């Protein structure tokens, strides 16, 4: 045994068991919150941990998904594998498809949905599906809780509305917006463990006649924060939910996005791809049309 090879560090660490304990600690100091660690550790690069760490992973009652009167409630410690395994209505299909695309099984088993939001990466795969569900982020401090829409919570690249002393405790999906069926499409340069070049989520609800009664469409990695395409959503309302309707998604609908050029792709490509991804996400919401890119589309071979 040679513990002398580990760094000598003098550092505070707390792993509270209750939310009350966590909040009172948070009220007293400048803590860095640690959940699944899948953004935290890579973010260290080669530096040792020096900041005081508030490890939230032992807090009771924050893991899992349940449904009460008005909401589906996703606890802050729910990891992507929990999302995949959960029995959820078809409106959550996009979120489940996104969950399968996050990194690898190794990552999905630790990485939390809340951490994905808090990390506020423009390429966070969880954001577009949650936006398409009109999810609310519950932010709690000793002073109480507040609810923020996803786009009011994620404010920019690596920027959130979290104030000192606050943590995310839950993500709420209103029953009213968990109707219909949703779909998620991710574009990356390889199959597993890849950050999105662009991605889109769409949710559509229809009436008995097959006409669209609700539409929610969002695009990620094409702006600092994923964006809903409200104009397109409005135009879809009242239209029949058929393949022909898909043609309604045009380049104009994504023109307001502001993608960047980076080593993964130039901006112009991202914009063109975004329109196509939106069409494919929409097609994934129609019965009998599976989106082309959704990687885990069951094949004859796959039992999933």
């Amino acid at each position, binding site marked *: 045994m040679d513990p002398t090879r580990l*760094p000598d560090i003098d550092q505070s660490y707390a792993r509270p068991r209750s939310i009350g304990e966590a909040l009172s600690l948070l009220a007293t100091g400048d803590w860095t919150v640690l959940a699944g*660690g899948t953004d935290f550790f890579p973010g260290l690069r080669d530096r040792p941990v020096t900041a005081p760490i508030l490890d939230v992973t032992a807090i009771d009652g924050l893991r899992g998904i349940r449904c009460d009167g008005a909401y589906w409630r996703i606890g802050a410690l729910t990891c992507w594998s929990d999302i995949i395994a959960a029995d959820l209505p078809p409106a959550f299909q996009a979120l489940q498809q996104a969950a399968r695309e996050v990194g690898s099984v190794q990552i999905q088993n630790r990485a939390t949905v809340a951490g994905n939001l808090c990390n506020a990466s423009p390429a966070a795969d969880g954001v577009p599906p949650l936006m398409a569900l009109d999810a609310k982020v519950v932010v709690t401090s000793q002073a109480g809780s507040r609810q923020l829409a996803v786009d009011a919570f994620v404010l920019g690249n690596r920027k959130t509305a979290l104030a000192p002393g606050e943590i995310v405790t839950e993500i709420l999906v209103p029953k009213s917006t968990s109707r219909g069926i949703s779909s998620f499409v991710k574009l990356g340069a390889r199959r*597993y463990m890849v950050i999105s070049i662009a991605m889109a989520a769409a949710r559509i609800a229809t009436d008995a006649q097959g006409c669209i009664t609700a539409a929610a469409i969002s695009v990620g990695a094409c702006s600092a924060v994923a964006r809903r395409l409200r104009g397109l959503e409005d135009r879809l309302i009242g239209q029949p939910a058929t393949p022909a309707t898909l043609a309604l998604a045009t380049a104009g609908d994504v023109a307001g996005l502001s993608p960047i050029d980076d080593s993964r*792709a130039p901006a112009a490509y991202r914009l063109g791809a975004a329109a196509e991804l939106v069409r494919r996400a929409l097609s994934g919401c129609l019965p009998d049309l599976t989106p082309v890119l959704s990687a885990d589309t069951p094949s004859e071979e796959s039992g999933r």
Partner: protein
Amino acid sequence: MKIEFQVNGKAVNVDIAPTARLTALLRDVLDLKGTKVGCDAGDCGACSVIVDGAICCGCLVAVGQLDGAKVTTIEGLGNTAAGARLADAFLRHGAAQCGICTPAMMVSAAVLLDQSARPSRRDVEGALGGVLCRCTGYRKIVDAVLDASADDENSAPALTPQRRAAVGHRLARLDGLAKVNGTEVFGADYVPDGAALVRVVRSPHAHARFTIGDLRAFKGDHSGIEVILTAADIPGHNLHGVIAPFADQPVLAETVARFVGEAIAIIAGAPNCVTGLDLSAFPVTWEPLEPLQSPAAACDDQAPRLHAGRPGNILVEGHVERGDITRGFAEAAHIVEGKFTTPYVEHAYIEPEAGYARRIGERIEVHACTQAPHMDREALALILGVETEAVRVVPSACGGGFGSKIDLTLEPFIALAAWHLDRPAYIVFTRGESMRASTKRHPSEICARVGCDASGRVTAMDFDGVFNTGAYASWGPTVANRVPIHACGPYFIPHYRAHSQAVHTNGPTAGAFRGFGVPQAAIAQESLFHDLAETLGMDQLEFRLTNALDNQQPTVTGQVFAEGVGIKACLEALRPAWRRESAAAREHGHVADGSTTRRGIGIGTCWYGCGNTSLSNPSTIRIGLTATGQIVLHQGATDIGQGSTTVISQIVADALGIGIEALDLVGSDTDLTPDAGKTSASRQTVVSGTAALRAGEALRGMILRQGNAGSDAEITLANGTLSLCEDGIARVIELANLETNPHGYVLEAEETYDPPTTPLDDRGQGQPYSVYGYGAQIAVVSVDMLLGTVKLERLIAAHDVGRAINPLLVEGQIQGGIAQGIGLALMEEYIPGKTENLHDYLIPTFGDVPEIESIIVEVPDPRGPRGAKGLGEHVLIPTAPAILNAIRDATGARIRQVPATPARVRAAIEEAWEND
């Protein structure tokens, strides 16, 4: 903080910083070294362990999160039935090459098998998709897991070959067991007690002058630092380079740093202090200089010279010329041309460089993951200012090398620190450090032109390649020399001119990477061949057959082989697949069918000379017989996963006429094994293999002479006695009566082989290699026309290996090489400062390597051992061009810049539509 949890069923109770990573706890505190660290960032999965039933990355788990958890590692897997089945299947399928990813693969597979009794291929890919492998191409891993999951007992047991039939046998690798049970010792897996940790201070600038500040004060401020060494502290020459006449690289830069990541100082001391040092506080003042960003900028008259005596920053130029290209092009009915660009490509072995050194009196011992122990030894002796004999290099298991672990990286640092401190010193590069400090594949800019007559015979080819060789020479001269010889591909081209330049810039040093520039050249040549055949309206395969080199035809250097030219045989072997896939592609794709994807197929080919270009590159192999009847094979060819240990043993066993299990192997160690040269240039099977064959034959002759036996006598070794059996009569040889030599042997054979080559004249004419290997591949792709994404459907590879000494290992090389070719074609681009990690630098994952059909072609070469040719590098050359040609076939788009990212493919498709 005190933490209690279980590892492999045993209670563990430790006092440790709660934010330490689980990998550090397992490896450094509990000494469970089977769990590997490749990146410390979740990207490689080598650290995969099971925590409470779920697979996760040990490098992303804070030990504080473990309270009460149950952790299972590879060490715990061995005791389970599933673990044993997996280990057996991995061995039989050749699913472990270097073995650095293997523990993680096995642990991930164990979780899958626990959850699903009969997983599908897709399930296996999904469950293991988080673990990267750079060697195998993944297919054999999937096969092994499926095999281990099969409850039926029809999986073939690994058979030991019959006597005299080891060559040709699908023998599981002899060094495989340690790889599948996690006990293999890689560079970072053993650190002597009390060793000092070494860290390296590196330049953040591509080009900068620097002045080192007050070291004494810095040392005083940081207790635990024992020594800081700079250029001034190097006892011998502060200079190294793999090709002695071009040696230009300081171990520690003196006043100017020439690339991002160049070392300027090392710090050694107590690990717990040195590991946390903030190196950005190191006392140094930088004066940034204008960096040379590209060869074009470097060749400019006004550009500063990076090295004296290299005008225009040109390191070396290579040239081959045959016939008269003006006449050749005049005879052409069709001419195509193009400019092709390839980027820096990172080797991305999963094992970052690591090792330790210790001083023993006036000798230094270096244990590290290297591909070239004898070269290291000579270089280290010069650096330390000692005799070569004072240096011992013992390669650890090497977790992938692919050319980059030939150059010195960590070795001088640990040697210097151990020498100064007179106590062991170790280093483990971080992933970022590994990527910044190690060599890369040369970026290239190639302009080429090819013409053919109306019947499809190539009449002329003109080729100009500029290779960015980065800050230092490394293998730049080899690339510059190899490329013009190979740029023609395996074809007969009567009028040919090829010129290459290796140019210095302030980029990372470009060195050896599977193929030494030939994969880049093949992209240009095969793309143009495709376009020519298309212009002619000729079938792609027939066009290549029409032009394929044959026996008795001169190569572009004027070398004529009477036998052994195998490209036609490879192309013929592909014909059935080519017909089948052509038909399928026509059916799927070229007509609009409402789908957004188009199917296409393409061909790429290769030839590749085995061994150094026109240079002596001998290998020596020693085999000894002890007085107690043991046969000991000393073979210094480092096995970096490709299988040379196994292949050379197979050759020796048959040459001696004994069972392979009777050989005792002494691995590479400069004190114990004679020089078998470096593991590169696809030379080990051919060159060391020939030395091994001769040594085996020689020892057999000596043994037979002891008993005056005829050449057909059978040698039997049992219970310490050796007997010769002839015509049914057995005779025991009294070994104990024989005199023992200084190596401890009663009989010993040592043979050296140096392949015959001749230097090239100023027109590049001569015999650069004694043996070439050949290959051809077909890629089948589906391209998403709207998004530009390329999905590989299948690859079919036919490689002429002369004689497959071990078909299982041959397939492993083919699949692994193809995976790297896929990376080159579709996703890999190293951009200093941007893609210095495995998150942004993408290499193929499980889902990116399709089914691969390997066809082993055997056109024996009389100059190779038992007819064998090399293979290691050949396999990746045809892949990228085959893929690019398939994209062209599917879409009409010609990709001239790799990687063919979705954005580039989409842009090329749009361009093709505009030109339509």
